[in-house]
């Protein structure tokens, strides 16, 4: 990894080091210069203008900053940008291919699974990772997969329905599912 040493001094001491990292974001190769303390969520939002990734609790509880890092959902608020060097990242902006809504996104619209919308990008990415590994999940599996994504509008019933519809499985949400 290339580092940029800045020898100029600030009043607070030597300037912190800069590092050059390479990311593949939504299929596009991107090169970014970051400080050691840069968080992936801030690099995506502030450097790459991908503001679809939301910031909520910033402590790994709410899941609104969920992105796919090499295919697995992670909280981008708890990943240093440097830790993602060389990785492939998918944000919500990368889900709709060629301007067409992904099946999951269409199902969220169809089933009215969006209320305020703040949790939606994270929900979609968690669901996307689930369906990639398990195309026909059971309802408890759906609930377990989105357990790290909080919807404070409490719209879980329609969210579970939407994911089930995208997976073409029947959701029996009225009886209540038990997440493991």
């Amino acid at each position, binding site marked *: 990894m290339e580092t940029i040493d800045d020898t100029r001094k600030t009043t607070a001491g030597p300037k912190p080091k800069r590092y050059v990292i390479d990311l593949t974001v939504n299929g596009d190769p991107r090169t970014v210069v970051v400080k050691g303390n840069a968080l992936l969520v801030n690099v995506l939002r502030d450097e790459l203008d991908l503001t679809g990734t939301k910031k909520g609790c910033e*402590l790994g509880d709410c899941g609104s900053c969920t992105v796919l890092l090499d295919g697995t*959902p992670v*909280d981008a608020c708890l*990943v*240093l940008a440097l830790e993602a060097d060389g990785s492939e990242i998918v944000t919500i902006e990368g889900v709709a291919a060629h301007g067409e809504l992904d099946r999951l996104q269409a199902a969220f619209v169809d089933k009215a699974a969006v209320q305020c919308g703040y949790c939606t990008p994270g929900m979609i990415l968690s669901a996307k990772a689930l369906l990639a590994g398990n195309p026909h999940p059971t309802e408890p599996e759906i609930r377990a997969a989105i357990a790290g994504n909080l919807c404070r509008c409490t719209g879980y019933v329609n969210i579970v329905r939407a994911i089930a519809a995208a997976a073409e499985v029947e959701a029996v949400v009225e009886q209540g599912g038990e997440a493991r």
Partner: protein
Amino acid sequence: MFLPDFDYHAPETLAEACDLLRDLGPSAKILAGGTDLLIKMKHGLVTPRAVISLKALDELKTITHVPGRGVVIGARATHNDLVNSPVLHEHFLSVSEAAHKMANNQIRNRGTVGGNLVNAIPSADLPPILIALDAWITLVGSNTSRTVPLHTFFTGPSCCVIDPVDEILTEIVLPDQPTTGSTYLKFGLRRSGALSVTGVAAAVTMDGDTIVDSRICLGAVFPVPVRAHDAEDVLRGKTWSDELLAEAGEAASCCALPITDIRGTAEYRLDLVRVLTKRALKRAITEGHV
């Protein structure tokens, strides 16, 4: 919420990592998954001048069965690596199940076993089941390497015997053993993403209906994960029955010294120990390693 400035290092070898840690001294912190360290740094509880990432050390990520040694879990394996490991499914499914009870999917994809142990919070989900399965760990320093039984590793809340300026936890070993069943039961305030109010792990060695040996470890009811020796004594050599397991549950609650906090009162936790011990034993006896 922002992190203070620090230098970032991602050494290519374990030896290099140990040397860096020794050279940089107490101002450096080891970064594994980051799900605990970065939160502490955001809160200003730790302010390292340098962070040493174990990102490049892929050899610390494997989970294998080594005949004669047992199941060897690399310290950098994430909780979801444990959940999905065919080796653990074959030998100790209970460890996969316990890993699945920690936090949520996103955190399980980042948080590592080694980080979970070194962070040493009393309510952690993995220590009870690992201690019940008699695990030991390897700590590697720049010139040293030592083996520590996990039940002696923890010394208090957020305290353990690792030398923070020299040692790195590299592996957890679950030795080959005669145990016939084990399980970890957790009670949290939600099914997902909640810290344990009380957790109980039990491992038993059965000969027919006779309990030859057992190990019971309690989480979140003592400053460290603690063995319930009194309960184990109740069981040793006896034929199991629901009454006997209830008696063991009572004995286990005498081994706990819980506090009252935001998640539950001390009295409630004692009652949970009693009930969860009974249920965990029954599950381990009747269902094997689950």
